């Protein structure tokens, strides 16, 4: 099995997902399930902490695209934080940062809601 895992934390009314490992075609559905279950639980303030994310493929990024507008429409947002340069570069190449929040620090994101 691929090296990827997601852990969930709660800071006040903000849900933080700690993703670690490689987010690719095989592991994208795990992230999808986590996001889905947060949305099902009416938790729309979501921070994804990427400090331990080593790699992201387009399919992984696609999961965010599939849900971010829905979450925003429900009054929340998905904010991404603490990315390493390699991961950020993929987001940047695809034009993601101009549209959605990518922050250096999780605290900043949590407080930004």
């Amino acid at each position, binding site marked *: 099995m691929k090296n990827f895992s997601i852990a969930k934390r709660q800071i006040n009314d903000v849900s933080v997902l700690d993703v670690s490992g490689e987010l690719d075609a095989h592991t994208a559905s795990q992230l999808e399930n986590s996001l889905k279950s947060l949305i099902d639980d009416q938790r729309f303030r979501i921070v994804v902490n990427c400090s331990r994310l080593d790699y992201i493929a387009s399919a992984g*990024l696609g999961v965010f695209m599939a849900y971010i507008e829905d979450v925003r429409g429900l009054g929340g947002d998905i904010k991404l934080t603490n990315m390493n340069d390699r991961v950020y*570069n993929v987001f940047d*190449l695809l034009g993601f940062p101009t549209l959605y929040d990518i922050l250096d620090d999780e605290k900043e994101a949590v407080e930004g809601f």
Partner: protein
Amino acid sequence: MDFSSLSTEERHSRFELRTLLETSRLLIESQDPDFVLNNLLLITMGKLLVTKGMILIHKPGDEAYLVSKSKGRDWLTESEDLKADFEPEILERSIIRGKEFKDVFETIGIEPQSTIFNLKTSTHHLGFLCLGPKGTKAPLTDHEIEFIESLTIISSVAIANSRMFQELRHINRRLDRKVHDLNTLLELSKDFNMMVDRQEIARVFKFAMLGQMLIRTFFFALEIEGKRTIISISGITEEPSDDDLDTLFEFDDVCHTSEINTTDCSFLEQNKIELVIGLRFQNEKIGVVGVGPRATQEGYGDAEVNFLQSLGNLALLTIQKTLLLEEQLVKQRLEEELNLAKTIQEGLLPNPVPQISGFDISAINVSSRQVGGDYFDILGLDDGGHLMAIADVTGKGIPASLLMANLQSMLHALAPLEVTLENASGRINDIIYENTPPDKFITFFWGKISNDGKQFRYVNAGHNPPMLFRKGENSPKLLEDGGIILGAMPTMMPYSSASLSFQPGDLLVCFTDGVTEAMNPEQTEEYEEPRLIECINKHRDKSSKEIVDAVIRDINSFAEGIQYDDITMIVLKVN
């Protein structure tokens, strides 16, 4: 010479030199053309104490200039376009001022007392720095002009550099993006290779598209076994109807919806689908992918269409592969089942063929497929007599073999009972007639050999008449008595039977039509009875086994080994 004025001038010139030096360092180090231009304008306006200033940047390939900076009242405002095409002679000058250039000032829309400096490198004209008249209306001194010229040269080089730098950065970025696109394709082709679940393939394809194009609206429809269905979807409010799908499959392979009339497919408009791409497998369109607007507001250019097609084809091929794999599995399972059925069916035929004292008996059954519809049997009865049967079910393969198995079980159930052949035949006919479709029949012949082996009573229900070769006779007696073929209609007239006595040296040959209807390779001629009779007569004195082998050999050489139907034969010699 006035010393104090000289020292002022010296101070002035030192100040200018320092300004030039600092500015040049600032500008050369800056990669931002906007910063360079702003500085150039502010420094020159400050130096000359003019209240109006403007920088025009030439738009390459376009006879126009962009107002990049403008500080003057009544002058063009920033980011306006100015349509203008100047003579090469003008573009080569470094300074434009004076009445002779009245037209140029008019074109740009500035006062004729203004001064224009050309922003250029040794090879390129970049634009103009326009400065309004001084408040004092005094003309620019040579010294001032020299200073500003120096500054424009430095600025022009800086702008050209930063442009080049940006161009390079842009190219680098495009290259990075291309590399990423290719990586995505490569990675997915590897990932897809390991997937056999169609839903998973479709889902990964969807997410890769969403991420790669930064979109949220997406659908992927596929035609599987003639049925068109959506297999993956995102951000769509209402799934397309069957009619919508049919319309989508009719589109060109690459269809920008802005270029077509979408009124007959409201699904497209409702979901803001911008691009529909058809995917082909062996030149047949079996997939359609649609995508909504990109979050970046960029449209779909050739590069995006290419990428979409490549990734789509990859997904399609992978899905086709899983279908083929499944088909193969089904085939394999069917094959295994057929092999099992073959074993079962072989068990329904007597093996070895039972021997009856006073007789030499041999039989053979060769199916043209794994399972067949031919049947023969020899079984002992309680009274010491024996039952011999041969049958041929219409059709071939599994349906025929099922019916054959049915007949076998009926025969074995009836054999121990005290029923006459005629009555038993009638009952079998009724059961088969009741239980099978009207186009299924069985030709059937059976007979009872008495316990002393001397008498033979038989019923023929539409079967190729067995041949009885009496000792010393070359033409056989045909055993035809009985009734109609089994399963065609209910038993209205009872079956009749006939009886005969066996003499030593008699030879009875029963066979199915696979023997007499074997075809020559040209398929113009059948083997037929005369050849069979001739072959039997030739080998008449040999054992029953040798006779069977000889007939099979003769058929094979006639048909050159090609067998269309099941072949079954029983040869019985009376000792």
